[in-house]
């Protein structure tokens, strides 16, 4: 299984990553190798193995439904590029 440059560029765009031509070419080779490894692992008989969703063999701890956070807007917004009337400002997005 192999990925070409176009596949890599599509994935990079979805992840909002800027790649140079050289990087894209290199990644196409690297990612293809990873897929080859996966294909190789797919050959292994795993019928008797339970699928795993997480490497840790533990279950999710649940938190009691209590409000424990206080308002720290000022602190958070001190590092935001732009704010106005308590809102974070971003380049205009309109459907």
């Amino acid at each position, binding site marked *: 299984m192999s990925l070409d440059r176009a596949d890599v560029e599509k994935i990079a765009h979805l992840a909002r990553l800027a790649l140079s031509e050289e990087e894209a070419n290199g990644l196409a080779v690297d990612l293809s190798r990873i897929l080859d490894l996966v294909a190789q692992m797919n050959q292994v008989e795993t019928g008797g193995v339970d699928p795993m*969703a997480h490497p840790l063999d533990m*279950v999710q701890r649940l938190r009691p439904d209590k409000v424990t956070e206080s308002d720290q807007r000022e602190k958070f917004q001190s590092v935001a590029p732009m704010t106005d009337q*308590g*809102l*974070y*400002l971003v380049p205009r997005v309109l459907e």
Partner: protein
Amino acid sequence: MLWEPVIGLEIHAQLSTESKIFSGASTAYGAAPNTQACAIDLGLPGVLPVLNENAVRKAVKFGKAIDAEVAKRSIFARKNYFYPDLPKGYQISQYELPIVGPGHVEIVLEDGSVKRVGVTRAHLEEDAGKSLHEDFQGMSGIDLNRTGTPLLEIVSDPDMRSAKEAVAYARKIHQIVVYLGICDGNMQEGSFRMDANVSVRRKGEQRLGTRAELKNLNSFRFLERAINYEIERQIEQIESGGEVVQETRLYDANNDETRSMRSKEEANDYRYFPDPDLLPVEIGDELVAEVLGAMPELPDAKRRRFRKDYGLSELDADLLTTTRVQADYFETVAQACGDPKLAANWVMVELAGALNRQGLDVADSPLGPEALAALLLRIRDQTISGKIAKQVFDAMWRGQGSADSIIESQGLRQITDDSAIEAVVDQVIADNPQQLEQYRAGKEKLLGFFVGQVMKATQGKANPGRVNLLLKAKLSR
């Protein structure tokens, strides 16, 4: 050419928890922007989500209410996309192994028949923030207070065949989540939001047509209108030789039409994968048993019980169980006054009318169920007639006191004493010799005239039954 619409709904119900699904920030509606968006909600580096137990319980409750399988083990996944109201760059949702598996609800169609609608699944996820597009220095303003509010996304099977059926299903789900107390159901505040998947196919065709997804449907009325518009649009498209494209369309209530949203075929490539920040969730028998133990009576069961225990008609039972508050109100009145049918009539006609005129909900009724029952008791023991009772009801509504105090102070007590009524009857007969003659000559429908005269002379207070009896006896003498 006959066309058959095929409709499925995705409903997002905000779960009414105190805190967010993965953080301890408050979920209260209407706070100043970003004052309830903590480091976890903002997706700042180094934070870890911890799942809210109450959100899990509420999801389990829903699953049990629609007769669905609740997953013993369920996992969270990342749904990746970039939008400013989702600062992490992904939404934590569920993909494989959702918490609630296939279930179903029953809806009543217009012709009275019952239809079963399948629920494919329901999964937990976090809500996104809000983008405000008014002018903020030429930019968009982002409020992340809603970010991380727990949502239950309820996905139906494509079982609906008309906009009306889709509305009946949506109302049913709304009724269930509100009955269960897992969602406040407030549509203005966005607590209950609907998307519709709509396609059409030729009647008899088994394959599904290409569907469009309608977004932004925040009322049952808009849901119905948007689906009807979309059905027409798709049929026209196909009949004029074109084809339907799979896309997301936005309903514009002002122009009553659906519009294509900026094409985003690649944005639909969400690249789901299990969220490494969250371990698998295991739901033990103990938790399920606790949830079942706290399960309220559901609308369908309540409706059946009302029919059986109170002898109500299907329609009355349906109306009176619309909401839990309404049903509880009726039951209190029925039990306190001892006459369920009388209680049903008063709750559905007089009370509902008065509430309607002022745009109030039963929960905000100025008249409590005990007060109304006290009035109905006076009809039952014949202290007042049903007609006078309406007058007393109006006075009670205006806050003039209890039924008994109004009846006393306004002297509305019914005259049941035969001698008192007899005196009036004699007087009325004496005053109307012409009518008396006509009556005795065979014009018996004049009885009504005499009854009216007696009621008028007693300001409606004479017992109508006694008046009839006495008049008949005296007139025919």
